[in-house]
């Protein structure tokens, strides 16, 4: 059961051997002594060959969000099966579609300047996203029709939240 972990564009080969007691893992072929102990609701102590690491781990949409020395890592885990499916081109698409406007930063939705059904030109301002003293005007990424507005004024959104969907105008 060879497994891959993906962190950004980095791939790490892991091998998990569920034993009678603790599972053992090897990284890139090298086996290590490991012990994961829960510290608190979100935090864990991981000893790898005696090296002490203090992590917080939370499941996320993409896999797992790991905080380590105040750096956040997004970890995706893949089994042999996943890898095989990927080879067959069965990987789920994750890229946002061209007409989807997402929040570039977390913030508060200010004035919304379009309505569903409106025709917009690429560059037209759709709405204002307020964040920490700044007002950010979000423009339409392409020309078309406002298909769906997912937010309302005064709403707090996270980074990456889908705000508006524009369906592209048919050419000709």
């Amino acid at each position: 059961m060879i497994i891959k972990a993906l962190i950004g564009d980095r791939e790490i080969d892991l091998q998990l051997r569920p034993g009678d007691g603790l599972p053992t893992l090897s990284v890139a072929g090298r086996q290590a002594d490991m012990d994961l102990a829960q510290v608190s609701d979100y935090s864990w102590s991981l000893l790898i060959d005696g090296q002490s690491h203090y992590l917080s781990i939370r499941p996320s949409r993409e896999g797992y969000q790991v905080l380590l020395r105040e750096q956040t890592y997004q970890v995706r885990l893949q089994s042999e099966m996943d890898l095989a499916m990927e080879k067959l081109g069965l990987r789920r698409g994750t890229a946002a579609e061209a007409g989807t406007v997402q929040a570039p930063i977390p913030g508060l939705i200010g004035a919304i300047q379009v309505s569903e059904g409106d025709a917009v030109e690429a560059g037209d301002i759709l709405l204002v996203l307020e964040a920490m003293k700044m007002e950010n005007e979000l423009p339409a990424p392409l020309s078309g029709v406002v298909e769906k507005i997912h937010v309302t004024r005064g709403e707090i959104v996270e980074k990456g939240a889908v705000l508006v969907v524009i369906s592209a105008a048919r050419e000709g």
Partner: protein
Amino acid sequence: MFNKVLIANRGEIAVRVLRSCRELGLQTVAVFSDADRTAPHVLMADEAVRIGPPPSSESYLQMGHLLEAAAKTGAEAIHPGYGFLSESGPFARQVEAAGLVWIGPPARIIDEMGDKLAARKRAVEAGVPIVPGLDDATADPALLLQAAEDMGYPVLVKAAGGGGGKGMRRVERAEDLPGALETARSEAGSAFADDRVYLEKYLSAPHHIEVQIFADQHGRTVSLGERECSVQRRYQKVVEETPSPFISDDLRRELGEAAVRIASACGYIGAGTVEFLVDGEQNFHFLEMNTRLQVEHPVTELVTGLDLVAEQLRVASGEPLSFSAADIRPLGHAIECRIYAEDGFDGFAPSIGTILELTTPGGPGVRLDHGIRAGMEISPYYDPLLGKLCTWGANRDQARRRMSRALEELRIVGVRTTVPFCVAVMEHPAFVEGRYDTHFIDRYIGELSRHAARSNAHLPAVAALGAALYAERESPRPNHRAGGTGATSPWLEAGRRRQRSR
């Protein structure tokens, strides 16, 4: 002295003011918006009064609500902290009109020094060099073009009525000047209700160095030394230290004297900061004066041993300063890192969310000022400053190493912070050697990011292992088979289950 102080602020500065009040035996009144009902400054205060809904325009900036809260609780004095209404002449005037003590300089000084052009005039009168420029905001376009030509491009168009980068434009070429003036005027007009703008020479790669001064109502004005504030992004400070590793002792003395001259010239009272730009040849120019407590005041406290907030309270109540210029003998070195809810390696993008866990550093030479707690929501309503971590050392190197150590101990789970960015700054050769100016971040952001990635090169593998063991552990045991295939991998099951339950 008055007995009860209302603190017209929130976050770490409200907590900071509260601490000094308590040490002096004064009662404290906190104010809170609905977003801050259970914020630390409310939990720590003797009394707390609601002043409105979350947006600061409806709460912390509502002069009437604040004065009502003071009247209701019998507070006799108001401390504005920094930001919000701290540099509002009208608020200071209303506070005094209500018969309360305003803990800050008199309204007329706030008004005067808040007007950048009036402040520049005071500096000139006090014999202090200012950044070359054209102060006649009403000059006709031809005159402005000529002036810009004379001082040499790039030039800065700045608003007379305020700061914070609003109404400010950097202009590279003569043909861009008229348009820039127009935009700046309009921005300044809407931001400060004052559309006057002026021209300043753009100094390349200056140091931003400021001098803390203090004056009482009895004519004594003292300099408490300088702070080096050149680690900035978008004119916002990230790291400060004192003493400056850059300036000579002669310049240090000159800056202190210049700051005192300007403060004396305008009859200053209370805590104030005189900001200077210093070029590579140690020429200095007055930039502006801040008529309030500064975010970075703790580094000055660490090397002088003074409590600046306590001193503000004393001065406001009419007492003389507790020290004279001869008492100021700065000892050792202090550094401050600002902990923002921002990702320093992603363009300082703000981060909101809930602080799930908070672990604070301790031990020798560490001081932490913050206004957060575990379980607190970081909302987009307010400034993203969570707190300030300061260290003191017998020398700069010790303070710096101690800062790295303390930053490592600080753990904030739930939002991204500037902690890893600050760690990279502490370890960057230019910072280590004290060779940096206001372009430090812009110049080195790539290096800082690469350095962080390099020195943490082993961490992605650790994170992957942690996630794998976590998934294994959290997975339902019945599915667990020795030598199981990928298809029944317990951790993928667990991952999927959790995704579905969202």
